[in-house]
């Protein structure tokens, strides 16, 4: 859930509570206010009635509410003396304009006593009051409206104001998503006055800078290490070769030297592969040209024809179309030759290698080990399934690195007993 919606969710829930509480408090306040103002009105009536009584005693006989809003009844002196002004809420049968029959309606009543010509009377004055359930209903409706308007307002604010406020954040996020270590991209940058965002940006930039430096250093280190090894390896190889030429060895001794040479040879190949990987990753191949991949495949197949015949592996090439890729020619050759050699060398006697080209893809299927290889690991460095010792374990890692350099995709699959590698020479970036 997006942060904006998240905040909307929490705000609307808490607003619901706030508005309800407000409605509750407001209801009692307004009710009190109404009563107070009514009570003042009743007090006022009381005075007017007492004043009238002086002039017109006939109203002393109005002892029920049928003719007006007050009733006067004589009371005993003792009761009168102990009585005080009393305001009460009560119900009376009344007939409003909209009622067909009299109904019980809430009224506010002031009960008081007064003395007139040594006699005591009780005076009840009523005033029709607002119906509480009406009030509640009305208030509920208003509160609901208030709530809806508030939420609508929030959504609008979210959409326009907050989204605007968060824009630098999303922009930074987008740039981070597209950021790859070692790709020589500019560090993410957003223009913002918000302190949090500029802090975030600084922290992110510092982190990326550090990571990039570390990455570069490591890459350089691997490159330098491999590079520095070249000369000692050259000396070792050549000295042994000279030694074998000159020396008068017994077969066993010569065999020993031979196996040392093979080990050095392995180191040389490993070293060359590491150097190649470093150079691919540091983008030292920038001679992009339109490479006829189908011709490279044909060349590779014909180069390995005799080898395939010797290993009793049948190689077939079905190229229905031409396949051109925009890339470095040397790297294209490496992709093709690594995959074709791979298919041939990791094969079984009387096995097959089927190569096909169609559209943008090169597909190479080969028989071999009867189980699928680990799809996750097959392209990682130094992955050697089984007990194979001779390979460098870098051939497919190099293919993968080249594909990543150009945004091509390379995938592995195992179907029908055949290992299948597919390279899509279309740039997916």
């Amino acid at each position, binding site marked *: 859930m997006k942060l904006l919606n998240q905040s909307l969710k929490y705000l609307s829930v808490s607003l619901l509570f706030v508005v309800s509480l407000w409605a509750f408090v407001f209801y009692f306040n307004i009710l009190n206010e109404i009563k107070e103002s009514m009570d003042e009105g009743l007090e006022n009536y009381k005075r007017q009635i007492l004043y009238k009584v002086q002039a017109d005693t006939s109203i002393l006989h109005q002892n029920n509410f049928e003719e007006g809003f007050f009733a006067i009844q004589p009371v005993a002196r003792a009761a009168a003396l102990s009585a005080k002004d009393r305001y009460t809420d009560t119900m009376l049968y009344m007939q409003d304009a909209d009622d067909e029959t009299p109904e019980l309606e809430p009224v506010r009543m002031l009960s008081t006593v007064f003395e007139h010509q040594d006699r005591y009377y009780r005076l009840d004055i009523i005033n029709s009051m607002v119906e509480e359930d009406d009030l509640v209903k009305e208030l509920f409706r208003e509160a609901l409206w208030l709530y809806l308007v508030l939420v609508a307002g929030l959504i609008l604010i979210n959409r326009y104001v907050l989204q605007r406020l968060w824009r630098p954040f999303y922009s930074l996020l987008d740039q981070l998503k597209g950021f790859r270590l070692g790709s020589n991209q500019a560090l993410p940058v957003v223009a913002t006055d918000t302190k949090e965002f500029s802090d975030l940006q600084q922290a992110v930039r510092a982190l990326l800078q550090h990571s990039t430096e570390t990455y570069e250093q490591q890459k350089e280190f691997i490159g330098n290490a491999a*590079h520095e090894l*070249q*000369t000692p*390896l*050259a*000396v*070792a*190889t*050549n*000295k042994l*070769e*000279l030694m*074998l*030429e000159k020396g008068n*060895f017994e*077969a066993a001794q*010569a*065999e020993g*030297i*031979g196996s040392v*040479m*093979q080990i050095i*040879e*392995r180191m*040389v*190949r490993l070293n*060359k*592969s590491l*150097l*190649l990987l470093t*150079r691919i990753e540091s983008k*030292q*191949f920038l*001679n992009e040209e339109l490479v006829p991949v189908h011709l490279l495949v044909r060349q590779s197949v014909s*180069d390995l024809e*005799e*080898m395939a015949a*010797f*290993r009793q592996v049948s190689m077939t090439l079905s190229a229905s179309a031409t396949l051109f890729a925009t890339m470095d020619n*040397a790297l294209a050759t490496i992709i093709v*030759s*690594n995959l074709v*050699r791979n298919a041939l*060398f990791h094969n079984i006697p009387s096995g097959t290698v089927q190569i096909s080209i169609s559209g943008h893809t090169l597909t190479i299927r080969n028989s071999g080990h009867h189980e699928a290889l680990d799809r996750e690991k097959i392209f990682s460095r130094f992955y050697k399934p089984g007990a194979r*010792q*001779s*390979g460098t374990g870098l*051939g497919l890692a190099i293919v993968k690195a080249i594909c990543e350099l150009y945004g091509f995709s390379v995938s592995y699959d195992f179907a029908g007993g055949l290992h299948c590698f597919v390279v899509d020479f279309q740039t997916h970036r």
Partner: protein
Amino acid sequence: MKILIIEDEDALRETLAASLAQEHFVIETAADFHTAREKIGVYDYDCILLDIMLPGGNGLALLAELKQSDKAENVIIISAKDSLDDKLKGLELGADDYLTKPFHIAELNARVKAVLRRKKLDGKNRIEVANMLLDIGERLLFINGEQVPLNRKEFDVLNYFLLNRNRLVTKTALAEHVWGDDIDQADNFDFIYYQIKNLRKKLQTADLSIEAVYGIGYKLVEK
């Protein structure tokens, strides 16, 4: 034949010198930029092996000087840097070849011989040894004047052996030269053996033979 080896790594320089001395070349060596520059200024060499990274200066600068005096075509660059830039620059400056360290002695031998051979080319590019004639341009083999058919790889193998006559050619050096360098050696020794066996059959009437050396490599010798 006079060859100058410009290489700062002592052990490598001595090994290269020892190996080339077996071919009866006159070898001179230089361990740094200034020595090399002096020698180049004073003498003419039939072939110069030039390391690019030298104490005192860049080998490419030496190459540029050689180019000015039209002597660059005898240069084989030997560098630990397998960098396309350097390679292109070197070849642009007129170097004949570019060899990345580490390399096999047989490979260096072949390249040096190729430079010398080109230099002496008198219109025909062919090697005549004993009763055998190899036409490099036409890629044809004649034994006693009769053509013997060779497939492409067999021709390459034989040519390589002829460039390294009487020298040990290890199986790995052969595999790298003929089948490309990222071949897994253990997988291919059987294949090389098989190829050599076929080649030997075709050379039956020649006064040359390919001898196995300790099971590590082969040597082409005159019978």
